[in-house]
């Protein structure tokens, strides 16, 4: 039972890591039906920015709490600016064109950003210092969960709740839902679609940056390629939960995390990816739109 609980918590921690990234995928997809492959790279850039800024602030003798606050805040802003620009340059000109064009553009952006960081920073793995607090009251339970995992879990939950509220109850959220339903109709009733899409990208990229800082703190390392691996799994999680749905992305991530964790724990980690994709296939066979995905009605 104790082993079961350990695996459950480890799956939860893993799930919350996936969820942090899956939220960004699902938001963008929900609005413009684009799989934003560059999301993983924005996450990596967020991590890198925090690493650089953190190093600068720390050397100026700032206390750890402030270092964390400012480096996260600035890297979130920087990543958001990146997301905004990428959308303007690479996706907007392709809006209304076949969806495949935008998808390929997204893959292109992902490759460009990876190589940009590779050339401008380094190809090496760098240590990522943890600015996150260590909870001493968690010490007795360290075999089950550590402070960073708990923080990631908490942040994921808070972000999910905030996003859901934002989309349900604010004007921007309403505009987002309208754009998601029918972009032309939304335009006709006076929604500034361009602005809505820009806001979506800014929010998605900001989330990616938060994820970048937290996950890199957890892993203790960063290099230009981390976005790719994490991005693939987060994408699977988003599809699993029903792409386009905010609670779906989180639920899908947890299902994926638990599947991998129990699969590793009770069978073998050799087949970790196999478990992930088997569960994906099973769920898509039963519910083609994912666990919480809305069934798309065919428009006639």
């Amino acid at each position, binding site marked *: 039972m104790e*082993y079961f609980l*350990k*695996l459950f918590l*480890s*799956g939860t*921690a*893993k799930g919350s*890591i996936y969820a942090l990234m899956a939220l960004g995928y699902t938001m963008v997809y929900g609005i413009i039906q684009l799989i934003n492959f560059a999301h993983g790279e924005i996450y990596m850039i967020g991590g890198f920015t925090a690493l650089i800024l953190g190093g600068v602030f720390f050397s100026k003798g700032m206390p750890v709490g402030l270092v964390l606050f400012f480096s996260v805040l600035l890297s979130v802003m920087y990543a958001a600016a990146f997301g905004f620009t990428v959308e303007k340059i690479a996706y907007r000109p392709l809006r209304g064109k076949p969806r495949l064009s935008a998808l390929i553009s997204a893959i292109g952006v992902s490759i460009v950003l990876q190589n940009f960081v590779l050339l401008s920073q380094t190809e*090496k*793995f*760098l*240590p990522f210092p943890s600015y996150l607090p260590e909870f001493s009251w968690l010490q007795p339970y*360290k*075999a089950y969960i*550590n402070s960073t*995992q708990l923080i990631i879990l908490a942040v994921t939950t808070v972000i999910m709740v905030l996003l859901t509220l934002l989309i349900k109850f604010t004007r921007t959220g309403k505009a987002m839902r309208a754009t998601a339903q029918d972009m032309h109709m939304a335009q006709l009733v006076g929604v500034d679609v361009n602005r809505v899409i820009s806001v979506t990208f800014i929010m998605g990229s900001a989330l990616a940056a938060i994820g970048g800082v937290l*996950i890199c703190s*957890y*892993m*203790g*390392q960063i*290099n230009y*390629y*981390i976005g790719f*691996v*994490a991005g693939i*799994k987060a994408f699977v999680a988003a599809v699993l939960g029903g792409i386009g749905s905010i609670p779906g992305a989180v639920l899908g991530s947890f299902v994926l995390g638990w599947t*991998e*964790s129990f699969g*590793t*724990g009770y069978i*073998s*980690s*050799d087949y*970790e*990816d196999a478990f992930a994709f088997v569960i994906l296939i099973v769920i898509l066979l039963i519910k083609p739109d994912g666990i919480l995905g809305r069934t798309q009605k065919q428009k006639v």
Partner: protein
Amino acid sequence: MKFLDIYSSHQLASFIIYAHVLYMRKEEYKMKRRNTVLMVFAMVSLLILSGTQSVFAAPTIKIGVAGAFSGDLASYGLPTVNAAKLVVKDINAKGGINGQKVELVIEDDQCKPELATNAAAKLVSSRVVAVIGHICSGATKAALGIYKDSELVTISPSATTPSLTQSGEYPNFFRTIAPDDAQAKLATDFLTKTLKLKRIAVLHDKGDYGKGFAELVKQYAEESGVTVALFEGVNPGAPDYSAVVNKIGNAKVDGVVWGGYHPEASKLVQQMKDKGMNIPFISDDGVKDNTFIEVAGKYSEGVYATGPTDTSSNPLAIKAIEDHKKEFGSEPGAFYLNAYAATQALLNAIAKAKSTDYDKIVAALQSEYVDTSLGRISFDKRGDIIGFGFSVFQVQNGKYVELK
């Protein structure tokens, strides 16, 4: 009978040999190989004899150097040429060996087996007395048959496939690098004899290198009575290994062996120590990299890793590196010191044997100890290097320290 000049007769001879090699391969050795080579040899000697007398007039000892000197693996091969050139330059400056100057014959194989047989045939026809090379294991294996039939000693600085020496098929083959399985053997010896572990977990990254190491450790450990309670591959690059770390905890092992590279190793040690598991962590030379210590920081403390023995404090190695900088204006590349030592050992054996006779060179290589850039080395009966290999290192105070 000087109807061909020496150059074209060489070309012709190598072409004939190459054609025969191809023919032999195609016919799947239907003809007895030895006979064919003898036949070819008869033709070659005839051609060379008819060519010119200058071959015999030149009082040089010819040493072949073969390997990847162009193509995408050239960076592995070119340092060997530089090393051989420098050693030969030193020897010739001192008057050569047994009164004869040494001359290098360089042939490129691009690490491709089909080009390696060609290069080997050319070297044989150039009447070299021994060969330094080849660089890649596959190319070396392809060329070795030809050298064996021509009774040429071959010393590779870099071919690590265990079977090259262990099969006993090539008594003419020597190498100045430890074979691939030496690391796994050393790591297993260390964990069974020094750390006295009884029950271990072996993890790997599913790659050729890491999994190969892990499988050998598992095999050797089980042979020496250690229980391998867990043997699993993990996904490289994954952000989280806590599930497999829990599994290690559940398996109640007293040590973990990791076959793979440092990025995963640092996540594993970090997540193990976070969960309060303070058991020995033993890995390979993919982890014996200072980046591991930088990235894993305090978590790296106490980690064991096997890696090539550190020879940088050896005065001959320092001289070899300085000479390279002086002559070529750059830091030496991969396998440079191994190639340097290979050339030194070969020339020493020729000097000690006072002959370029195959049997005498082999006997000298196996009986004489010689000071080289890798330290004081010799070769065992199979042709593997003695006196240089892998050592166990441990991270102590943020540095890898060799455990003696």
